[in-house]
């Protein structure tokens, strides 16, 4: 028995090139992991995912931009350390300050 066969509505054109990152992320990084007969796949894909993040995505750069808060604060994991938040905000302030163009009037 299947659910009513309504044709699924697509939001915001996920087939566009801009959505490719979402496809890559899901297909390479999510989905159930089954050990197939071609053993190269799993390990290599994990490495590949890391590579995608590092080479294509450059996690360090994201950190420089001050958007690394999730590393310490995945919402669902609950409680966080107040000092850590302060530190993070201070770092963000510094980054923001450095990036600022304040000389124009």
């Amino acid at each position, binding site marked *: *028995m*299947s*659910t*009513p*066969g*309504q044709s*699924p*509505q*697509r*939001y*915001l054109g*996920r087939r566009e*090139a*801009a959505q490719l*990152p*979402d*496809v*890559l*992320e899901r*297909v*390479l*990084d*999510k*989905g*159930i*992991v*089954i050990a*197939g*007969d*071609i*053993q*190269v*796949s799993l390990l*290599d*894909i994990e490495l590949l995912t890391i590579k995608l*993040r590092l080479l*294509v*995505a*450059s*996690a360090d*750069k*994201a950190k420089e*931009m*001050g*958007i690394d*808060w999730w590393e310490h604060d*995945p*919402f*669902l994991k609950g409680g966080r350390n107040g000092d850590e938040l302060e530190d993070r*905000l201070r770092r*963000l*302030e*510094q980054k*923001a*300050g450095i990036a*600022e163009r*304040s*000389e*124009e*009037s």
Partner: protein
Amino acid sequence: MIQSGVEVAWYVYGVVPADASFKPAAEGVASTRVEVVTEGGLAAIVGRVDLDEFGEEALRRNLEDRAWLEQTVSAHDGVLSGAVGMTPLVPLRFGTVFRDETRVRELLGAREAEFTAALERLRGCVELGVKVFLLDEERSEEAKPTSGRDYLLQKQRARDATSAALSKALDRVRDLHEHLASIAGGARANSPQPPELSGRREPMLLNAAYLVRANEQPEFVAAAEDHDDPGLEIVVTGPWPAYNFVEAEEAE
């Protein structure tokens, strides 16, 4: 190693109930036909692929080929996404390849309980993605600093404003995620994509996935987009196969 160019292997996209009624995509990875292998109450969505392309050596090489990867990954998703909304579906991660059909049947038999439970859990549900970007705030320009001290004070004020804006945005995003999680059947906040991956200059503050009842999608999308903060852009994607909700530890 056999050098034959016609040696095939079985690429598995996902698992559905054996009695699922859906029309498989016409074409899967490497332009192969999409087929179904049934065993007991389960069916695997598969394709016969060439070992010259999906064998160990070839796969290792192809994974380095960005164009091949993008095309093949898109095809993998295309096959699964074509069945979304028509049948519960357990998506497999990219690159699950078996030597022959018997091995695929063995997989279905060996993990029947697990697959069946997952399909039951996902029945009637789809995955929706919600991404939130922090847009540039327009900042009022200050007068040209008249002294070094003045300049430093301006910098300080700018830092305070940026910090306050970000802090406020993070609070809003956290509230949004908590609200969406409360109305969804499952929720997962992934690492936001950095600009090089997202293709956008603006920082991504939220990259989450939610398991939503198929018939409640419009309400969920409305809830996700219901905000009046001009500093945030919310992007909803999907419906996706439940890629984010098939590992045991993600069940809520």
